[in-house]
Structure formats: C-alpha cells, structure tokens
C-alpha cells in the first residue's frame, strides 16, 4: 500500500469522495478511478462498464471494478450520456493499475451541465479528505 506522499494525484483533474477522477476537455469528460483507489483495490482483474448511450445522474453507480480482493462499485462524477467506453480494458484490465489517468481511463461522458464539475474536489481538497 502506498504512503500518502507517494500517491500520484495530478492537479489537472477533479476528484470525487469515492476516489474517481474526471477531466473536462472540450465538451467531453473523461472518467476513471484514481491512484489511491487502484492502490487500495490491488490488481484489477475485471472492469464492468455501461453501454454507449446509457445516461446517468451525478453520483449514480455506473459499473464496477473487480480486483483479487473485492468488487467495488464505481460512481459517476457528472450527469450525462456515455459516448465512449475503454474497450481495451476487456483484454487488459491491468491498465487501471499501471496507468489509471491515461490508458486506464474508464468512460467518456457528454455532460448535461458542465457546471457540475464545480461540485468535485481539486487535488488539495481531495488530499485533505484522504487525511481525514
């Protein structure tokens, strides 16, 4: 398990209390689980993702990540429609461990209202939450 100081938490993404990350570029939000989540879960063996076209409200469960230790639900950081899912995870779920912010992304969402991004935490706020 990583020490707090070893966690990779980029400053250019937003975080949820359930340890997902979200990044707005153009009018699309890319979503994944963060370094803390992948480290706690351990080696990921399966990722269950929604279908393209599904719609969710902020905080809804949209899939699950299964590791050797546990199956964890994942919650969507922003309301909207799924426009793309990371199909590469089917054959290589380990990407969630090795590269959670790039090749290990989970879904892309066309948000209903980008202002919902303001409800999410930035890096300092997220770190404060982790430190409790």
């Amino acid at each position, binding site marked *: *398990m990583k020490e707090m100081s070893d966690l990779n938490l980029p400053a250019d993404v937003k975080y949820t209390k359930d340890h997902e990350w979200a990044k707005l570029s153009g009018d699309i939000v890319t979503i994944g689980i963060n370094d803390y989540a992948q480290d706690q879960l351990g080696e990921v063996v399966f990722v269950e993702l929604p279908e393209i076209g599904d719609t969710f409200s902020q905080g809804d469960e949209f899939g699950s990540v299964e590791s*050797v230790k546990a199956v964890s639900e994942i919650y969507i950081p922003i309301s909207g429609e799924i426009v793309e899912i990371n199909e590469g995870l089917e054959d290589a779920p380990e990407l969630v461990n090795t590269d959670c912010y790039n090749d290990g992304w989970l879904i892309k969402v066309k948000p209903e209202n980008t202002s919902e991004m303001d409800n999410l935490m930035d890096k300092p706020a997220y770190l404060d939450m982790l430190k409790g």
Partner: protein
Amino acid sequence: MIQQPGTSGLVLNEALLWDKSRDGRCAISLPKQDVDRATLDDSLTGDIPDLPQLSELDVVRHYTRLSQWNFGVDTGMYPLGSCTMKYNPKTNEVQAARKGFAEAHPLAGDEFSQGSLKLMYNLERYLAELTGFEAVTLQPAAGAHGELTGMLMMHAYFAKKGKQRSKIIIPDTAHGTNPASAALCGFEPINVKSGPDGILDPETIAAVMDEDTAGIMVTNPNTLGLFESNIKKIADIVHSKGGLVYGDGANMNAIMGIVKPGEIGIDVLHLNLHKTFSTPHGGGGPGSGPVAVGKRLEPFLPVPRVVKELDSYKFITDCPETIGKIHTFYGHFGIMVRAYAYILSMGAKGLLDTSRLAVLSANYIKESLKGTLNLPYDRPCMHECVFNDEIQQKNHITTVDMAKRLLDYGFHPPTIYFPLVVHGAFMVEPTESESKEDIDQFIDAVKAIAKEAKEDPEKLRKAPFRTKVTRLDEVTAARKPCLKG
C-alpha cells in the same frame, strides 16, 4: 515453544482417472449372464459414456492420494468463522448406515416407513423444543434454502392478509445470503448499519420500519460473534408495524439450551444441521436447513408434513395454505439421522455444555490474541471472535498473508475478509470440539506468525511453503482463467 502440527512430508502426485485409463482394464467381474442377450431399440440408446477403465488398485490409490491432499476436521483444527466446523462423531455415521435407514425407499409408503417417520417426527419435536417454536420443517437442503423457505412463508403470510409488502430490513452484520434469499422472493433488501458496539440499535430499526416492510432478517449471534441484546425491543418495533422477524440460526451453536429464539420475538428461524448438529459440512455434505415457526406461520409450512396419530406416523399434504414442496421427497433424510443421533448422544445437558464450551473457547482465543492482532470490537463474544490486520499493516502484511502462513503451521485458516463490516477481518470459530491444548497450539501459531510479520514480512508474503501447492497466482487465475483440465 509448543510443537506445531505442521511439517513437510512426501505427497504423491496423481493423474486424472481418464489419463490412467487403459482399454480393457477392469476392477469387477460381472456375474455370468443367465438370460439371452437382447438388443435395445436405437431410439433408447445413446453414445457410450466415456468412463475410465481402471483396476481396483488404481482406484484405491487415486482416492487415497486425493484424500491426503485434503484438510478436514479429522486432520486438524478448522477454525473457519461462521461455519461451525465441529467434529462429526463417528456414531452418527454408524446410525445412518443402519439397514433400516440406509435402505429406506422414499416411495415405500407410510406403512413400511414407520421408523423413518418416527425419527423425522421426533427430530422436529426436539428442534422445536430447542428453539421454542411450534412446528418445524426438515425439507430445506441447506441454510440459504431455509432462508428462502422462511421468506416464502412470510410472503404467503402477507398475501393471505391481503396486502403484500415490498421491503425487508437487513443489517450489515447479517449472513451474506440473507439479502439474496429475500430478493429472490421479491423483497427489496434495505441495508441498515449496526451501532458502534457492533450490535443493532433499536432506533435505527424504528427509523426504517414501516407498513410496506415485511420485517427484518437478523442473524443472532451476529456475524461479529456478538449477541444482539436489543433483539426483544427490535422485535417489538417490527411487530408493532405488522412485520415479522426472521432469525438466521446459523450461529445457534452459541446459544443452544440457553436462549430459545421463539421466546424472544423471532417468528421464523432456520437451523443448520451441518453446523450446530454435527452433520458433515463441506465435502458435499449434503447440508440440511430445517425451519422452525410459531403458530402464525405454521399453516404455510412446506408439505408433506409428518404427523403422529395414536402410535403411528404418516405424511399429510392436505394443508391449503402451504407454500408447497421445496425439495424432492422429504429433504436430506440421511442427514436427519445423523443430527438425531447427535441430539440423543449429547442429551439436553450435553447440548447446553456444547454452547457453553464453544463460547468459552472463542473468548479464550479472543483474550489470548488481543494485542497480537487488532480486535475492533473489544467486548465479550459468543462462539466466534473477529480480529483484523491493522497492527500488521505497518509491515505491509495483510490478513491473507497470515491465513496462508497458518497452513504451514498445520491449521486450516479462519474465515477472512468476512464480515465486511470489519476491514481485513480474521474471524475465528474454534467450536467446542477443540481441547485446550489444541487451542493453545493455535494461539501460539498465530503469535509466531505475528512475530514473523515484523521480522521477515517478505517471507510471509510468499507463504505457504509446506503445502502441496504453494501461493497461487490469483491475479493470473482471475484474469486468464483456465476453465477446463
């Protein structure tokens, strides 16, 4: 230092029977045919089954070797929490093998099955007496099947009242099968959290109990090994809204002869004969999960039911409100014989002592290992105690590492990562079967492992070393499963 049971020794490999098979090899001589050979119509035959051809010695060695790879309660201590892996007395097997029972036929009819019917009738009465209920069905095949039976009866009860209910309350310390059994009956499980002391707070239940809620499923003692001491208040709250209380009696080994669930507000309860009543658990069992009910639910019991008239016994099916049949014939009869043998050989006092000793043993382990392992709920426990790996985490050792290492010391590991309310749970249930010497050996082994966690954590992460198969690559097994031989 106590001499530990685990050691290394020669274990033999064994091929699949089909790999050992050779054409024409045979272990039996069929009697000489005394009728003429007749051919069957093609429509009645299929392909020849692919059965292995083996000599008697091939077969004997095969199963002997497989049995030597195994670990059972006859091999050593098996403190698998929540499972009550107690010793299965050999007399149970002797009684079940008696010709009258072993060769009984389910279609023989009441007249020719009086002994078997009497046994079932008496077993139902004994279980009713032990639990404080009116009536019992022996049909369910296991605990979760008993839960389903109970839920079906609750469903039928509300249907009869004319207003079905849609929800059921399930605490986070209930057995994992509870929400599944309820959902299978169409109830939506409403999860509630236990209080800071590990037991349910009546106010939590009062806040969610309403007239669309069928009731609550309570495991008591709960999966933290703690007695739900507010159970009467909780039952009153549920009853005041017209609901029913389901008791998961899988942990009955802690309270036999001490508490009668039927007298503390429970309306329906299942028992696990393969836990509390010493019938085989694992290895195919099969299981048996009788369900006991009070007057209110009795009309809904599965059929056929055994009744006594004068001095004879018979099955009846004429019960208009029954939920019907839930098993072929009458349930797992051979298991009923074993449980009956256990109850008769223990006697009332013996069963009471069983629970007292099971609780004493668990508390002895709890007090002896407190400090070596973290104890999240430090209060008197019932038949099991739940530790976790918080102390070992600073050396990056987790519960699974310690559980694997216990195999090297010659013990079956305890239940790990359950209940979910304790992070990294390490759940120990010694049962009454183990002597103080064997329990001390176990305590000593856990202490030695905790010491290794500090001094040589790298080694612990690779354990076990003395088993036939060492640490499995669980990641590859999950990512690239090989699903056939």
